[in-house]
């Protein structure tokens, strides 16, 4: 979590609020706004008619029927209007360049937040259609897609909500979703996790062997002597070093201080154990696996790292693992791909999100049991394209998943399509989905899939002030977004 806060702070520091003060008199005094008398749709299905929403300093302060309006608030009359949370695209590419979606990335450490251009001209249109938050799904054409990000489409000064999000694994890509290709890809996914998991175990084993080597090598624990002898700033700097560097330094230092003779030269010069190769990509993948504390417990297979034969299967170490630090985002179009993804989630105890299409419908029960978040992506292709795999989905996919209680979110998977997210939700309603579920699919459920449900997704006290005031039902094409609030600030819809 520490890395998340650091990155968000850096991004805020860099992205100073650019939008200068606007000329008209709608300048909110100290960011306090009251939306009075509108029909408020919370986002989780509740509807409060004639309610009031109070936004203060970028957060929702209060929402309800009989809420008192604090003095000095800018009062906005919303009688006859509908107020909803800002719409969220659960698997978007808006603001990224086509190259980012297809060019090969060096590894899992590539970050979608780097590719997001807050000044993209289409973000203005997305705001006018009520879309305030995007979950950028990183690369879509390669097995390891990189690290996703949750960003706000508000003024360029606004910060990324979560710059270091889920790891993206493309079991099936946009063009190829063939069965055979899927099986091979699923095997590749599993082998990636196995090697990373095995790598973690190896690293723990290496640290333990190194500690043993040092004790054997220097008698008393060398760490304690260092604390006494060396100046604090050198110690601070050495903490940055890897153990090998510190060990090598210690040999030189003690020799230079004339104490070399005190150490008897071991008969066989013990060599420090070889350190595993540092790779930022495996670090990112490792962060999706729960921490392997129990692996070094006594019953673990200390002797031979790779258990062999029947014994290995029987005496599998009971790995008790805490919750993973990072979520994993599987893209799987067909049923076979969904099975592969669910298998990986089960076997490696991942925090999974399955992004799919027709495959989700065929695996509704398995998804229900695996308590993973579900996203229906490339909804634009289903309607418009004639050739892509998404075009061959049956109608009513959203309805089927929602009726099975899966809380499916909607994702567009493309750059321009995200601007009209509400029309895709309307099409799902036309194909049988309940209107309340459709609105939840592009607000709260999408926030849950993106992992920022505590930050945005519904109009609830303490959450971000992303609120949209509509002239009618947001799923109607003829409806206009009359006012859009991003982080409590009203966006000037007219300014280009």
């Amino acid at each position, binding site marked *: 979590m520490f890395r998340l806060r650091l990155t968000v702070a850096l991004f805020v520091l860099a992205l*100073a609020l650019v939008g200068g003060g606007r000329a008209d008199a709608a300048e909110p005094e100290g960011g306090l706004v009251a939306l009075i008398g509108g029909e408020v749709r919370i986002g989780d299905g509740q509807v409060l008619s004639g309610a009031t929403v109070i936004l203060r300093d970028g957060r929702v302060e209060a929402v309800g029927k009989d809420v008192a309006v604090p003095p000095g608030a800018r009062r906005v009359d919303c009688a006859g209007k509908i107020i909803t949370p800002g719409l969220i695209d659960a698997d978007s590419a808006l603001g990224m*360049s086509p190259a980012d979606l297809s060019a090969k990335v060096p590894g899992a450490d590539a970050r979608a937040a780097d590719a997001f251009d807050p000044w993209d001209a289409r973000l203005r249109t997305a705001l006018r259609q009520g879309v305030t938050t995007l979950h950028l799904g990183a690369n879509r054409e390669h097995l390891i897609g990189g690290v996703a990000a949750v960003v706000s489409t508000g003024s360029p000064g606004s910060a990324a909500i979560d710059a270091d999000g889920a790891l993206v694994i493309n079991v099936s890509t946009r063009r190829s979703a063939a069965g055979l290709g899927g099986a091979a890809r699923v095997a590749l996914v599993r082998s990636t996790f196995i090697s990373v998991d095995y790598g973690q175990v190896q690293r723990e084993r290496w640290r333990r062997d190194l500690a043993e080597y040092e004790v054997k090598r220097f008698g008393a624990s060398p760490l304690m002597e260092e604390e006494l002898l060396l100046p604090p700033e050198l110690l601070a700097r050495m903490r940055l070093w890897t153990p090998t560097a510190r060990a090598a330094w210690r040999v030189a230092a003690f020799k230079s201080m004339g104490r070399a003779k005190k150490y008897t030269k071991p008969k066989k010069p013990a060599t420090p154990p070889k350190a595993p190769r540092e790779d930022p990509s495996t670090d990112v993948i490792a962060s999706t696996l729960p921490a392997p504390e129990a692996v070094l417990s006594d019953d673990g297979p200390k002797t031979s790292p790779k258990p062999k034969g029947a014994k290995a299967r029987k005496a599998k170490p009971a790995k008790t693992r805490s919750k993973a630090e990072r979520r994993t985002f599987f893209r799987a179009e067909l049923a076979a791909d969904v099975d592969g993804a669910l298998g990986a989630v089960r076997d490696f105890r991942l925090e999974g999100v399955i992004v799919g299409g027709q495959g989700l419908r065929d695996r509704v029960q398995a998804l229900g049991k695996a308590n993973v978040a579900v996203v229906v992506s490339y909804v634009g292709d289903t309607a418009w394209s004639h050739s892509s795999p998404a075009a061959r989905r049956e109608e009513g996919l959203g309805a089927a998943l929602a009726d099975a209680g899966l809380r499916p979110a909607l994702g567009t998977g493309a750059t321009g399509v995200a601007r009209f997210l509400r029309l895709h939700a309307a099409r799902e309603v036309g194909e049988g989905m309940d209107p309340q579920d459709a609105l939840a699919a592009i607000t709260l459920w999408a926030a849950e899939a993106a992992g920022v449900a505590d930050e945005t997704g519904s109009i609830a006290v303490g959450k971000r002030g992303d609120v949209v005031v509509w002239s009618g039902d947001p799923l109607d094409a003829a409806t206009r977004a009359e006012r859009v609030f991003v982080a409590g600030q009203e966006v000037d819809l007219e300014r*280009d």
Partner: protein
Amino acid sequence: MKTLRFPWVVLALAAVAVITVAPTASRAADGEYVIQAGTVVTIDGDILTEGGSVFVSGGRIEDVQPGYVNPWGATVQKHETAWLMPGLVEAHSQGGLWRGTNERAPDTPFVSVLDGLDPLNDYFTDLLRDGVTTVFVVPGDQTLLGGQGMVIKPVGRTAEEMIVRRDAGLKIALAPRRGTSRMAQLAELRRALTLARGAEALEVTSDPDDPARSARQVAMSALLEGRLPAVMTCVAPVDVVNAFAIMDEFGLTGFIRLGSKSRRALPLLAERGVPCILPDDIEPLETDAETGKSERRYLAAECKAAGVPVVIQANEASGYGMRSLWYQAAVAVSQGLTRAEALRAVSLAPARVLGVEDRVGSITKGKDANLVLWSGDPLDPASHVDLAWIEGDAVYDRTKDRKLVRLLDGVAGSRPAEGR
């Protein structure tokens, strides 16, 4: 028959270029003289309009006095109608690099322009003709860590003779090179820098001159410790944001070269105080992909309005206008800068960004004697460079510039240009 004559012409031009440079590079007899001109533009002081005298000794500017005076008793060269300017400073260029400006491999911080410079390239004589006496030559942008650039003067027989400041900057490209994406470029950059920082920590002896250290470690440790400034090229405003993130994460120092589409990042640069160089086209036409509307932006004016010190570079791609620094300064004046600000933007401001303001950029006591004599107001196209001195040595004389005669009057006109 026409096509056969063409190669012969090129050979003639090259020969003429050599002759122009050689004779005038000899050092003045006793190294001390006074130059007097009708108007002296000092850049950091006021413009001396009723004549000024500059006393040069030992390649340095010893003293500047208004009026036609000679308290120092040295030989005087008097030019009543001329303007005396400090040599202009070209902030960012790939001119004079022979056979390409980038290695095919993206990660080459150890490469240096010192090995790629062609001292006899026409580019350097053209610079003198435009009154430029200092240029920062740096590898191109199609790279990740592109290599080290140098601040040089456009005279000298070997690359070493031309050096003004050796480790002037390491080229880092924030915008994706051809064939990759911004995500991949940033990930590779973070990996390279993290690897270098790790290797740095592993270093037993941090003595830079230890031959055992590889050239990469020398370059990267200089970069990470701030001794070697980073020259970060950004095309879109999001590149500037990523540049700030990289500078904070790895503690880099340096400056940013903006691309024509990064106008919106100017307020961010003003707020952070990172020095930046405007793109070579300071009047780009921006087209909005959504609405199809196109609008011309005036970058020098917007840079001044944002409170960022204006630094302008020339545009080598253009045929005549924008390739000259004096013309770019004139265009900046037409955009709203004052004449003093525009002249500073092509002399002292770039020198400050490149870290050589103690030696070049203005006519000030103690600085190198890089002086240029113009026939009139340098911002008027009708005036041209008559004489130029670099570090006290006379390096250009228009009357002896035989290539210029060919350019002005073509093949048939063999007689020297009358009068002018």
